[in-house]
């Protein structure tokens, strides 16, 4: 409201007309000049028309926005705006203002919007980091025909754009040779990881083959349970993304969480190309984890694009809460954004014969000594560690 009031109080052409009209009215009253009253009346009429016309012009117009579903970080996404005039009256000089989520403001001037016509405009946005971009309402504004009393109308045109994390080419990893060898040897299976060496029964998770549902256990447990096979677990990759609250500080550039997501995207891409099963894990609400099992298509990228900071303070808490979702003997990648290591978590992983690799994303949130200490601890436990420095 204050901003609106301030914009009203700003000196504009219409105030000049008001001041001129007031002055001429004063002169007219003091000189009894009839023609000056006529001039004042026309100035008043000009103001009245200038006030009414912008409001009439914008009435009934419709706006829609078309955006592609998703792009990768740094790629251009095309946004198409359509403004329709469903009435039988032409509209003149309508400015379309669209504030894109990246921060730019696009302004288009429609000289004439013919009756029953639609005008489309197009521009590009180039999001720098992953996420879900929500577009603001389209703003139509005009002060036609004489530039007085500009009027705005906000039209809801909901649209969102997914920005996938771009997996760095240099970070391409290979699936462990053991898993790859098993996959190569089981050529008769429809999919790598299918074997009849029964490993155990576990809770069903999304993406599991429904043929492996174990109905007696399901009946006993009251929820779906599936059989787990040995080779399937051996081919499993699991990625834990450390989305601690400190991983996403409000900053314009890259945040540790974004880098972690890029690394996770690299693993996901690798898993897809190698036809391995994949579990993505991250912190959710208190004591909860977000997980996705065997994501198909671009679901892994979408999951990573939508990933927001959780409540877990470190990756260790995420693993502790979601340990039962990590297949035994799986290859676990942790994209850590904080130098936190907890021995009990390492022990639990070792007990489940889960092979662990940690990527430490370094940021200014912790000192270099802390990262060094974490690296030493992990290496002492025989865990492979890579350090990735956040580009400043």
């Amino acid at each position, binding site marked *: 409201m204050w901003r609106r009031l301030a914009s009203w109080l700003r000196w504009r052409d219409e105030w000049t007309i008001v001041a001129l009209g007031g002055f001429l009215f004063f002169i007219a009253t003091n000189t009894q000049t009839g023609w000056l009253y006529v001039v004042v009346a*026309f100035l008043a009429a000009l103001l009245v028309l200038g006030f009414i016309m912008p409001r009439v012009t914008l009435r009934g117009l419709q706006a829609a926005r078309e955006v592609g579903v998703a792009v990768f970080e740094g790629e251009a996404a095309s946004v198409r705006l359509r403004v329709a005039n469903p009435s039988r009256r032409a509209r003149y000089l309508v400015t379309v203002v669209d504030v894109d989520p990246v921060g730019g403001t696009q302004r288009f001037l429609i*000289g004439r919007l*013919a009756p*029953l*016509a639609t005008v489309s405009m197009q521009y590009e946005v180039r999001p720098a980091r992953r996420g879900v971009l929500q577009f603001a309402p389209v703003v139509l504004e005009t002060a*036609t025909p*004489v530039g007085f009393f500009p009027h705005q109308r906000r039209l809801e045109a909901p649209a969102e754009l997914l920005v996938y994390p771009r997996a760095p080419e240099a970070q391409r990893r290979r699936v462990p040779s053991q898993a790859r060898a098993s996959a190569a040897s089981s050529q008769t299976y429809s999919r790598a990881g299918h074997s009849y060496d029964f490993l155990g029964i576990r809770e069903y998770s999304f993406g599991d083959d429904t043929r492996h549902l174990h109905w007696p256990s399901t009946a006993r447990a009251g929820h779906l349970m599936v059989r787990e096979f040995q080779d399937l677990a051996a081919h499993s990759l699991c990625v834990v993304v450390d989305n601690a609250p400190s991983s996403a500080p409000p900053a314009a550039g890259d945040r540790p969480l974004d880098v972690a997501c890029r690394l996770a995207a690299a693993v996901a891409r690798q898993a897809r190309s190698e036809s391995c099963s994949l579990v993505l894990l991250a912190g959710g609400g208190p004591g909860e984890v977000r997980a996705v099992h065997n994501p198909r298509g671009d679901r892994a990228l979408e999951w990573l694009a939508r990933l927001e900071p959780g409540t877990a303070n470190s990756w260790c808490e995420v693993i502790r809460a979601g340990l039962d979702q990590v297949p035994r003997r799986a290859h676990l990648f942790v994209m850590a954004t904080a130098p936190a290591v907890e021995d009990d978590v390492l022990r639990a992983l070792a007990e489940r014969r889960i092979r662990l690799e940690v990527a430490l994303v370094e940021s200014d949130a912790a000192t270099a000594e802390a990262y060094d200490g974490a690296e030493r601890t992990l290496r002492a436990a025989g865990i492979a560690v890579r350090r990735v420095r956040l580009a400043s």
Partner: protein
Amino acid sequence: MKFRVPSVWLPHHPPEHSVPFRAATLATVMCGILATLHEQEWPAFAWFVVGLTALGFWVSYRRRTMSNWWIKALLFLAMLAALADFLVNLVYSPYDPRIPLANLLLWLQTLHSWDLPARRDLNYSLLTGFILVSVAAVLSHDMTYVPFLAAFLVCALLTLHYNYVSQAAENARPVAAGPAAEVGFRRLLRMVAGLSGGLVLVGAVAFLLLPRYGGMKIRALPMSLRLNLPNMGNGQIRNPAYPNMEGRVGGRQQRHFDPNNYHGFNAVLDLNMRGQLSHEIVMRVRSSEESYYRGLAFNHYNGDGWEIANEDLKTVTSLNPPLFIPDSQGDREVVQTFYLEKDMANVVFSTFHAFQLFFPTDTVYVDAHAGIRAGFPLEAGMVYSVISMYRQPRPAWLRRIPSALGRFGPPPRRPPMAWFRDAIAQGDLDLPDGLPQRVRKLAQTLTRGMGSDYEKASAICLYLQNHFVYSDDIPPFPPGSDTADQFLFVYRKGLCEQFATSMAVLCRAAGIPARLVTGYIPGTFNPFTGYYEVKSADAHAWVEILVDRFGWVPFDPTPGFSATVHPATRERQTSMLGPVVEYLKEKIGLERIARWEAEARRLLDPYALLGVAVGGIYFGWYGWLQFRKPRTSEGGETETPLRRLRRRARAAARRLLGRREDDTPAAGVMDAYRRMVDQLARRGHPRQAWQTPWEFSREAREAVPQAQEAIADLTQRYVRARYSGQPVDEAGAAAARDSLEDFTRQAGHRNGHPNEAPKVPPST
């Protein structure tokens, strides 16, 4: 080395490249300049100013991207010269600065037009245009200002529009969306025409609602330049229309009546002179209040006329305006400016009592009856202003003042005041010896038993207003007869002089000092110019009576006029509706038109009723039939004849207005489809009334197989545009036109493939 002025000195604004914007601004400014020049009656430098301004706009456009520091420096010097010229002119005309100010503004605008690189500068020019047209409004006296104002408003609308276009395009990318989205010249004209219509309508309402307060508080009142005309006759009345009536002796012999000049503005008022005064405007008056304009007062009645006895002229002199008129009394100020349109007698008009006079001479003369005279006859074009101090009579109080002489009533309780006795001594009670006794008896009858002179005069005035008729169809009264007697007892009708004479005579007979006054009634108020337009026929005569302890009180006994002549203030008048209607009635004779209309209604009523009845029955029957029997038009549409008529009328209106049929994309699609149906009908495949577009499409595709795709595409687009309710974009319309072209090309080959050459008949 090129000299560069630091940017701190010359702030940079982006240059304005729009030629239409500049052209519209030039047109607006020109309207203001021409209006001002017109109101100054085209001075010698007029075309110089116009040419320089136009040239300046052109130079400004050509040099819009340059710094132009030397032009700015020259303009600065020229503006200083214009200011000096203004100050010099102000010294010569200190009491009317309007013309020097108008000239200064004209020169400033002319100079400013040489330096208009940016939009902001053009906006300043527009503002100056507004001020110039306002200056012209102040100078204007008549309706010739209207065309300039109308042109200015249209141009100002265009300028403001282009200003907004330039402003809006500054930060926004223009959207290219085909020909329908272009604002062409025709569309612009239509838009401006519509806006101008709206502006006139809303402006008219605003004009009617604008309050008009009593003003004229500015004391720099206009008057003509000082004239060095010779004083002729030391204040003797000189009327150029009645040259032989100068002075008292022998004036009675003149019988020539001048319709443009009232014979009451002479030393004598001949009551037997007859004639019709013209409706020529003799003067325009700007007045803070509506009031009578008093000219001369006559105090000697001789039976067939009035004379001014004991003139006792006083000379009022002042080297600088204003001239202070002595013996003025009053508590209410009335400010008036008179613009003379015709040559007149040397009588200076004003509301009673004039106090300050802004007159173009250093000397005027005031007679014993407060009549003001100049030393020379007044000429057309002369301007003078008067501030009067009016003493508002309060009837309730005046009725309580006892009669000074007590004739026909209770005797006076105390002797009258000295100036009352002086008036009696000057002859303000005198009556001719031959006045018939019945006149005195009538006075006695009318005023018997009344205790105050004001009451008596009111009774006489009302008697005259209610029992006698105003008429200009009366012959001169018989020689030797008394005018008052003839009017009161023989003719019982007459002109304002007869009414005033009779009242003055009856008042004198009742012992009330009275005199006859000539002047003008307020005239017609023109709400547009703000002037009272006073015509020759507005000349009038009324009466002043002397009330002891108060002074002279005016009365108007003529029927149709207010009995008590008081200035009527226009203060706090909140609507101009009344004055506008009155003015229009006066100017275009609305009353006459209304009479004709009533007459026509009276004559035509039975026929009109019959016509309405027959027409109603016929159209009802016709409409019902047509509603039940829709037919197929030539365009393939199934519609009733009434709808077809409406469609044709719309099309005709569009053609008349120059609008294309394919004004909208949807209309373009439908038009393309109609053309295809027309072509098919000409080929012997008309669309039947019962056929839907798709049914017709199937039949047409079978009939013209080589154009199958085009027919299907056009049908699909037509159905979507016509029935889906979805807007059609320009691309859709263009595609429909392309399909129509394809259809036309392909359907041209009746047999075989379209790519085959047409069959040529063998030559014989």
